[in-house]
C-alpha cells in the first residue's frame, strides 16, 4: 500500500499541490483524474523521487520513505512512465531500457548479451517486433511510448505509475497495454494511471482520485460513478457535450485540392497517390494509426519538404509551389503541429510574443515593431480562445498543455489563413479544454475556413468532421461522409491489410 | 583573491611615494623578453624606484592600453620594448605629450624624437655576421633550411633579411626549404622532422631564434644527422649557450638584454636627476657566439 499524506509542492509562482492525501492499494488500478495543470504529474513525480523537496510524507508498506532521486525510488520498487518521452535518441532500445541499471560482468564491463536478451523478451511481451538494437530515433512515437512502458516493466517494481501512457499510441498498442495492466493487477502490484481519455479509465481503473487546482476534491471507486459525474468532479460544473449540427458544406466551392501526391523518401514510400479536396467551411478529418503518414501529408502540403514529393496542390485553383512554411503562411495555409514542445512553442518567450510572431511585419509600423498592436492582438485571442494565463508576459513554458495549444492556435489564426491544419490538436488535453477546442473548430468552420483535423482518436474525429479521410500506410484507404461514418468501418479501413 | 589585491595594493601604496617606472615589454611569452623585463625591473629597484612590468602580448593595441593606463596612474618614466617599430610610435608620442620620458630597449621605433633614448640590439647586422659565419662553416656551398619566427612579426623578417643579405651572394648555397616555426621549440622540431623527409641531404639550418634552433637540433639528432648538419640560432639563450659548449649548436647571436635593460634603467635615473642630452640611438652590437669564443659568454650576456 502506498500512502501520500498532506503532500504539498510549490513552484515559483504556482502552488502545484496543496495538502494532497491519497492511498494506492495493491492489486488495484487507481485513476488520477484532473484538468491540465491540476497537479497530476507533479504528484507522481514526487512519488517517484523526481522532486526531492516537498511537504508532507509518503508511506510505502507502512514505512515512511523519502527519495533523493529517481534511482532511490526505483530501488524501493517504484517505477514510472513519464508523461513526456524520456529516451535518448541515439542509443538503442536495449541501452535505453537498461540506462542507469546496466548489467555488468565481473570486470565491471557491460554484459551486452544478457541485456539484449532480456530486452528482446520484454519487447515480445509488449508485441513490439523490432530488433533490440534499433536506435530510438528510428522508432515512431508510438513505438517509443512502448519502449517507455518496457522501461517501467524491466524491474519487477511494486508500484507502477503511468502518466498518460496512451497519449501517443494507437488502439492496437493500447489493447496490449491493457492486457499487461491486467497481469500486473493480478500480480497484486500497485498501479497509478493518468489519462485524459475517460473511457479508458472506465475500462481498467478500479479506484479514482480527482485533483483540482492541486487539491484532492474526491476519491472513490469507478463503479460508483459515470462519465458525466467524473467530468463534473474535475471541472467543477457540467459541460454540455456538444453535438454537431452543421450547414452542409458540400455546396461551397472547392478551396484546397491535392492530386496524385507521392512521396518517396529513400526506399520508403511515405505517401502514395494521395488525392482529395477540401471545401470552404468544411472540416475534413483525417484518421489513421500511428505511422499512417498523416503528419507527413500535412508537412508536404505546408511545403516542409520542397522538391521531395510529386503531385500537385492547388489553393482556390492556383497551383501552389511552396518552398517553406513561410510561403505557406503567405498563401494562407497554417499548421498547428503535432508536437507542441518540439515544433510549436518558443518556451522562453512570453505569450504575447508567441502569438504575434508570424505577423510581426504586417502589424509593424515602418519596419519597427508596434507593441500596442501586439498587445491588442494578444488580448483579442486571450479572450476569444479563453487562454488561461496570469498575464501576457508569462513565459509559455509555464502554461499548462491545453493553454499552450491555444497559444499556438492563436498564432496560426492571427495570420488569418484560408486553410487551417491541426495535427492531433487535443493530445494530452483535458476533456473540458478539448470541448472548447472542438467548439472553436466548428466556429471557425462556420466562418468559412477550410479545416483539416488529423487525429488518432475516433470519437474526436467523429465529433468534429464533416468528412473523414482514412489513411493507411501512406495511401487513402477510405472516405466517409459523416452521415454514413461509423467506428467499425473507419477502423477496418485504418488497419493495414499487408500483415 | 581579494587578499591578493590587497597585498598588491599595500605593495603599491605602501611607504613614501618613490618615483614609479613602468616597464612595457612586447611579450612575456618568450624568455628573452622575460629576462629583459626582469633585469630592467631589478635595476630600477636597485636605483630606489618602484617599478612594474606590463606585458603587451605582442598586441600593439594592448600596448596602447598599457601606455594610457601607465600615464593615467602617474608613472614617471617608461622603459619600453616595442611590439612594432611603426605601430608603437603613436604610443610613445602620447607619453611624451604627457611629459613622461620613454626609453626604448632592444627594438627601435621609427621616429626621430619621440623616445628620449633608444638602446637597440641590432639583429639585422647581427644576422649579417651570422650569415658570414654560416657561409664560412658551409664553405660557400650546400643546401640549407631557414626556420622563420612568427611571420606577423617584423623581427622575423629583420633577421631573415640580414641573413640573406649575405648568404644570397653565394649561388651554391641553396635554400631548400623556408618554413615558419613561430619562435617555438616544439613547432621547430616537428617542422624540421618533416623537412628532413623531403631533404635528408641538408648541410645547415638557420633558425630565427634559439628556441627554434634547439628544436631543429633535436630533430636532427633523432634523424642521426647531429653534427653533420650545422645549426645556427639567435638570442644567446641559456639552452643555446650550453648546447654550443657541448659542441652541438654551431653558433648563436648574443644580444645583451642585461646590458640593454640596465642601461635603460640608468638613463631613466639620470633623467630624473636632470640629464637631458641622451644619444638618440645607442646600438648595442650583437656578438656572434660560437665554439671559439663560447667561454666568454653566459646566458644573455658576457661572463664578468
Amino acid at each position, binding site marked *: 500500500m502506498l500512502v501520500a499524506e498532506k503532500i504539498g509542492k510549490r513552484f515559483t509562482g504556482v502552488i502545484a499541490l496543496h495538502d494532497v492525501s491519497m492511498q494506492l492499494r495493491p492489486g488495484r488500478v487507481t485513476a488520477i483524474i484532473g484538468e491540465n495543470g491540476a497537479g497530476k504529474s507533479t504528484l507522481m513525480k514526487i512519488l517517484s523521487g523526481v522532486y526531492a523537496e516537498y511537504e508532507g510524507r509518503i508511506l510505502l508498506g507502512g514505512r515512511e520513505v523519502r527519495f533523493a532521486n529517481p534511482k532511490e525510488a526505483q530501488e524501493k520498487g517504484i517505477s514510472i512512465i513519464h508523461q513526456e518521452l524520456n529516451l535518448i535518441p541515439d542509443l538503442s532500445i536495449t541501452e535505453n531500457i537498461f540506462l542507469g541499471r546496466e548489467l555488468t560482468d565481473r570486470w565491471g564491463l557491460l554484459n551486452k548479451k544478457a541485456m539484449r536478451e532480456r530486452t528482446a523478451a520484454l519487447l515480445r511481451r509488449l508485441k513490439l517486433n523490432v530488433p533490440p538494437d534499433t536506435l530510438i530515433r528510428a522508432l515512431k512515437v508510438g513505438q517509443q511510448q512502448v519502449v517507455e512502458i518496457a522501461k517501467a516493466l524491466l524491474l519487477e517494481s511494486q508500484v507502477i505509475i503511468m502518466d498518460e501512457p496512451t497519449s501517443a499510441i494507437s488502439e492496437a498498442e493500447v489493447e496490449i497495454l491493457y492486457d499487461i495492466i491486467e497481469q500486473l493487477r493480478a500480480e497484486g502490484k500497485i498501479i497509478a494511471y493518468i489519462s485524459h481519455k475517460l473511457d479508458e479509465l472506465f475500462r481498467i481503473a478500479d479506484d479514482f482520485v480527482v485533483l483540482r487546482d492541486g487539491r484532492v476534491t474526491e476519491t472513490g471507486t469507478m463503479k460508483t460513478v459515470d462519465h458525466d459525474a467524473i467530468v463534473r468532479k474535475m471541472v467543477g460544473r457540467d459541460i454540455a457535450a456538444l453535438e454537431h449540427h452543421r450547414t452542409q458544406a458540400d455546396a461551397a466551392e472547392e478551396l484546397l485540392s491535392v492530386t496524385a501526391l507521392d512521396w518517396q523518401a529513400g526506399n520508403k514510400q511515405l505517401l502514395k497517390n494521395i488525392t482529395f479536396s477540401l471545401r470552404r467551411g468544411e472540416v475534413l478529418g483525417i484518421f489513421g494509426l500511428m505511422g499512417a503518414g498523416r503528419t507527413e501529408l500535412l508537412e508536404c502540403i505546408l511545403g516542409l519538404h520542397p522538391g521531395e514529393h510529386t503531385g500537385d496542390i492547388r489553393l482556390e485553383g492556383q497551383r501552389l509551389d511552396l518552398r517553406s512554411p513561410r510561403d*505557406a503562411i503567405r498563401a494562407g495555409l497554417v499548421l498547428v503541429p503535432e508536437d507542441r514542445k518540439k*515544433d510549436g512553442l*518558443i518556451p522562453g518567450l512570453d505569450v504575447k510574443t508567441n502569438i504575434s510572431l508570424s505577423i510581426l511585419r504586417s502589424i509593424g509600423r515602418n519596419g519597427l515593431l508596434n507593441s500596442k498592436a501586439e498587445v491588442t492582438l494578444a488580448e483579442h485571442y486571450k479572450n476569444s480562445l479563453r487562454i488561461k494565463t496570469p498575464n501576457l*508576459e508569462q513565459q509559455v513554458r509555464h502554461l499548462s498543455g491545453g493553454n499552450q495549444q491555444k497559444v499556438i492556435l492563436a498564432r496560426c489564426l492571427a495570420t488569418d489563413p484560408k486553410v487551417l491544419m491541426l495535427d492531433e490538436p487535443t493530445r494530452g488535453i483535458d476533456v473540458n479544454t478539448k470541448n472548447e477546442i472542438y467548439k472553436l473548430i466548428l466556429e471557425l468552420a462556420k466562418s468559412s475556413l477550410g479545416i483539416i483535423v488529423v487525429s488518432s482518436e475516433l470519437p474526436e474525429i467523429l465529433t468534429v468532421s464533416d468528412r473523414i479521410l482514412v489513411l493507411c500506410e501512406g495511401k487513402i484507404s477510405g472516405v466517409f461522409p459523416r452521415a454514413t461514418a461509423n467506428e467499425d468501418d473507419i477502423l477496418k479501413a485504418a488497419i493495414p491489410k499487408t500483415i | 583573491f581579494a587578499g591578493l589585491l*590587497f597585498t598588491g*595594493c599595500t605593495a603599491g601604496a605602501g611607504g613614501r611615494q618613490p618615483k614609479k617606472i613602468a616597464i612595457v615589454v612586447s611579450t*612575456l611569452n618568450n624568455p628573452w623578453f622575460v629576462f629583459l623585463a626582469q633585469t630592467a625591473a631589478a635595476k630600477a629597484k636597485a636605483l630606489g624606484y618602484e617599478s612594474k612590468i606590463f606585458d603587451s602580448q605582442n598586441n600593439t593595441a594592448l600596448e596602447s592600453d598599457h601606455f594610457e593606463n601607465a600615464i593615467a*596612474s602617474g608613472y614617471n618614466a617608461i622603459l619600453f620594448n616595442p611590439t*612594432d617599430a611603426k605601430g608603437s610610435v603613436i604610443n610613445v608620442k602620447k607619453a611624451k605629450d604627457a611629459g613622461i620620458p620613454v626609453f626604448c630597449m632592444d627594438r627601435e621605433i621609427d621616429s626621430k624624437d619621440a623616445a628620449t633614448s633608444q638602446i637597440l640590439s641590432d639583429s639585422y647586422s647581427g644576422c649579417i655576421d651570422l650569415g658570414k659565419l654560416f657561409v664560412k662553416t658551409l664553405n660557400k656551398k650546400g643546401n640549407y633550411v631557414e626556420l622563420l619566427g612568427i611571420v606577423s612579426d*617584423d623581427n622575423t623578417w629583420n633577421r631573415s633579411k640580414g641573413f640573406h643579405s649575405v648568404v644570397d651572394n653565394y649561388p651554391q648555397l641553396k635554400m631548400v626549404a623556408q618554413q615558419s616555426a613561430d619562435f617555438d621549440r616544439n613547432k621547430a622540431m616537428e617542422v624540421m622532422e618533416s623537412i628532413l623527409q623531403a631533404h635528408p641531404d641538408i648541410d645547415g639550418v638557420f633558425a630565427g631564434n634559439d628556441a627554434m634552433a634547439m628544436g631543429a637540433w633535436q630533430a636532427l639528432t633523432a634523424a642521426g644527422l647531429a653534427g653533420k648538419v650545422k645549426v645556427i640560432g639567435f638570442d644567446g639563450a641559456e639552452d643555446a649557450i650550453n648546447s654550443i659548449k657541448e659542441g652541438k649548436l654551431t653558433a648563436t647571436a648574443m644580444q645583451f638584454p642585461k646590458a640593454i635593460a640596465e642601461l635603460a634603467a640608468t638613463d631613466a635615473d639620470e633623467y630624473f636627476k636632470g640629464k637631458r642630452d641622451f644619444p638618440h640611438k645607442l646600438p648595442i652590437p650583437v656578438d656572434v657566439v660560437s665554439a671559439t669564443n663560447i667561454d666568454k659568454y653566459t646566458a644573455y650576456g658576457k661572463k664578468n
Partner: protein
Amino acid sequence: MDLSSYRPLLTRFQSFIALLILCIALSLLSNKFLTIENGWNVLRQISVNVCISVGMTLVVLTAGIDLSVGSILAFSGAVAAGLLKNGIAWPAHDLFIGFTLLGTIVAALVVGAALGFFNGWMITRFKVPPFVATLAMLTIARGLTMLWTRGYPISSLGAKFDYIGTGWLLGIPVLVWISAVTVILAVILVRKTPLGRYIYAIGGNEQAARLSGIHINRVKIIVYSIGGILAAVGGIMVTSRLDSAQPNAGTNYELDSIAAVVIGGTSLSGGRGTIMGTVLGAIIIGVLNNGLVLLNVSPFWQQVIKGLVILLSVIVDKMNSKEA
C-alpha cells in the same frame, strides 16, 4: 514587451552589482582609478571589444558562435590601411586605383560583411556547425591578412584617418562615439524590429520558428554578416588608433568578446540575453584589465586573477538567476 525581461531583471542587476563592487574595491585600492581621465581610458579601451561583442551577442542569441571576429578584424583593418596607403595597382597594365578615406572604410566594411556572409553561408547552406565554420574562418582570414600584408605592418596612414582612433568630438573620444552608436543601433534592432524578434525566436526554438514562417537561413546569414561588419568596424578602430595595421591584430579577441557576452548574462544555448548585458560584461572586463594594471599586480598573477574574476562574476549571476 521589451526583451530585457527575458532574463529576470534581477540577474542583470547582479552583474551590475558585480561591476559596482569591482569599481569600489579598485577606487579604494588606487586613488588613480576614479579619475575622469582614467574613465575615458577604460571607455576608449573597451570600445573595440564592445563593437565586436555586440555582433557576438546577436550570433550567440541565435545559438551560434563566431570565433573568427579577431581574424576578420585584422584582415579588414589591413585592407583599409593597404588601400588607403597604396590603392590598388596593376603595374602590368599600368592601372592604378586610389581610394578616398570614405572609400577605404566602405571597402573594409564590405570585406568584413563578405567574410561574415561566408560564415553564415557555410552554416546554413552546408549545415557546418558554427563553431567549426568560424574556426576555419579564423585560420583563413588570418592567412589572408598575412598574404595581403606579407607579414609587415602597414603604417602612417595620415591624420585624417587617425582622427577616428585618436580624435575627440564634443568632448568625447570618437572611438567611444562609434561604440555608443553601435550599441544604440543594436538595441533598437533587438528590441524594436521584427528581425530582433526572429533572432530570439530562432535561438529559443529553431523548428518552431521555421513553422511560424521565419526565414531561418536568411536571418542567420544576416546575423553573421552583421558580426563580420562589426568586426570590420573594430578593425578600422584599432588600425586608426595605432596609425598602423598589424598583421597579428585581434588575436584572441574572440575569447574576450565571448567572455563579455557571457558575463553579460547571455546564454550560449541561445534565445536569452541582452545587448546592455554584454556592454556591462565588456565594461567589467575593461575595468578589470585597467584596475589590475593600476594596482601593482604582477603580469603573471593578473592572468590568474582575471580568470577567477570571470568565474566569480558568472557565478554571482547564476546564483541569483532562476536557472541556477
